[in-house]
């Protein structure tokens, strides 16, 4: 193989992938990277500590918006010119739609969200969720050029090494997209990092109304954890921000403990909780699929079970408070 090109619109992912590629250099050939968009030169400088031997820098106005077609045009030219055989892309939202665009331009096969990445002999073998998350498809791209977008957290966090790698200004043609970004708005502040939380309370449509959220927030607090949710609570109802949504189209988590409340357990959701060490499910329906995904199940109404569980947990912690919580207040 004649080399790897690494690109991501998220610098830390580019660093991780760059370090991964550098570690596989014997098999995959020289690692190179591309840094595109605003402040590209400065960001490329930071990239030099992660093992790429060449870093291509492009801050042409046509790519500052990072639109897929413009970025794919630059990457396609680099692939051809540098005789690249593997392109690793960070599977952010942008990366997920960039990768297949680039693949089509290069007539290449593509994995658009690998959650496993490894070498088997001389092949890069990837794993991705398939059948809505029921299965993991392990596969390898057999076209001469392979495009693989890699989900955050799939390869090890890179630690910076010796600073090396030449910075090269991209001098090829940059074709602007016919589309244009006309506005950017920050999403309401990101409050939490579900992917790294140790304890999660994940709530679904068993929650009857937004006003009842304190019920699960209290439990999360008693556990020292965070509240997460299913897609309907975030996308459809807007009760909780998207960054708390778990599943194939949301966060994947790996807490020590996940308490799943009023969640049916559809596969598109449960794919995101597979990494949990222990899962507790609370659901009124004995037949709810979530119980098949759980270690411990309580069949019951969350409006009865959760307050009791919260009180017991608070009691355990506070010694004396335990008595208080289990005794009628007044």
């Amino acid at each position: 193989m004649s080399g790897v090109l690494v690109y991501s619109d998220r610098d830390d992912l580019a660093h991780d992938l760059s370090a991964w590629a550098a570690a596989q250099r014997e098999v995959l050939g020289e690692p190179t990277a591309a840094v595109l968009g605003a402040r590209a030169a400065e960001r490329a400088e930071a990239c030099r500590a992660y093992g790429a031997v060449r870093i291509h820098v492009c801050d042409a106005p046509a790519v500052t918006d990072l639109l897929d077609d413009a970025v794919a045009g630059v990457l396609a030219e680099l692939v051809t010119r540098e005789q690249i055989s593997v392109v690793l892309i960070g599977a952010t939202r942008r990366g997920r739609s960039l990768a297949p665009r680039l693949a089509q331009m290069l007539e290449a096969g593509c994995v658009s969200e690998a959650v496993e990445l490894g070498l088997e002999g001389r092949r890069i073998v990837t794993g991705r969720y398939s059948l809505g998350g029921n299965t993991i498809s392990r596969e390898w791209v057999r076209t001469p050029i392979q495009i693989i977008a890699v989900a955050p957290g799939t390869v090890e966090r890179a630690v910076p090494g010796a600073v090396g790698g030449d910075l090269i200004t991209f001098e090829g043609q940059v074709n602007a997209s016919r589309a244009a970004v006309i506005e950017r708005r920050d999403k309401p502040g990101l409050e939490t990092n579900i992917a790294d939380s140790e304890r999660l309370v994940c709530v679904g449509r068993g929650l009857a109304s937004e006003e009842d959220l304190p019920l699960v927030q209290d439990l999360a607090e008693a556990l020292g954890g965070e509240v997460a949710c299913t897609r309907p609570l975030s996308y459809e109802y807007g009760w909780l921000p998207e960054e708390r949504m778990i599943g194939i189209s949301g966060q994947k988590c790996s807490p020590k403990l996940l308490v799943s409340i009023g969640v049916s357990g559809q596969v598109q959701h449960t794919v995101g909780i597979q990494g949990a060490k222990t899962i507790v499910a609370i659901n009124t329906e004995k037949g709810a699929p979530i119980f098949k995904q759980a270690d411990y199940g309580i069949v019951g109404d969350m409006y009865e079970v959760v307050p009791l569980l919260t009180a017991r947990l608070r009691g355990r912690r506070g010694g004396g408070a335990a008595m208080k919580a289990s005794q009628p207040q007044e």
Partner: protein
Amino acid sequence: MRIVVCLKEVIDLAQVRFKTDGRTPVLDGLPVRLGAFEKNALEEAIRIKERLTEVEVIALSAGSGRLKESIKEALAMGADRAVLVLDPLLEIADSAGVARTLAAALERIGSWDVCLLGEGSDDEYTGQTPSRVAALLGLPQITNVRELDIAGDGRVRGTRGLEAELEVVACDSPVVVSVTSELNTPRLPPLTAILKAGRKPVEVWTLADLGLGPGTVGPREAQVEVLSNLAPAGSRKNQILDGDLEAQIEELLRSLEREGVIS
């Protein structure tokens, strides 16, 4: 104005069963339906049609014979007509093959303004199709769109949900757009519409009609080889607690403590 909505027929994934090994999926005989995000795309197209005059909404799908039934749901929701590409090869085609088929069908449909697809399909959720179709046609793409505005003059504005920000992208038609479920809540067609759907025009094309065949669409062209496709080895305890609620909670806490997952 003409809007083409690409819809995929998918199996009901909640009904997937596994062989006795617990890991090998069995898909035979499962019911099929149209994908979820595709219905958001179609709903949006219909709303645009209701708002602007002279909008034609075409439902486009590539797949197998069962589509003739499934597509009625799209017609009942309000698509004016459907174009189906039916071929046994499509049942085993990869993303590139499907994209090539859809791109060829879009070219044959002729002048259209916006092509709407789902952000990802219910089953594979690769999101490759929209990008590949756009690349094949040399058109810009706006993906992950949660708010869409199409003006009478064909100017499209899509608000994309990225990780930390919302990005509004504007583009003149023609353009390829993929959408997420935040866009809208798809309507449930009334019974009368379901009955009438059978009378709406459905055109059926084969791959040969589109100048495509085994060399371009199908497994022999498969770009990605699947080594295995199995459910992860499950190892959950599946213990349903019993007794009165207080006792269940006590037992739960004891177990969680033993496992060292609560402090």
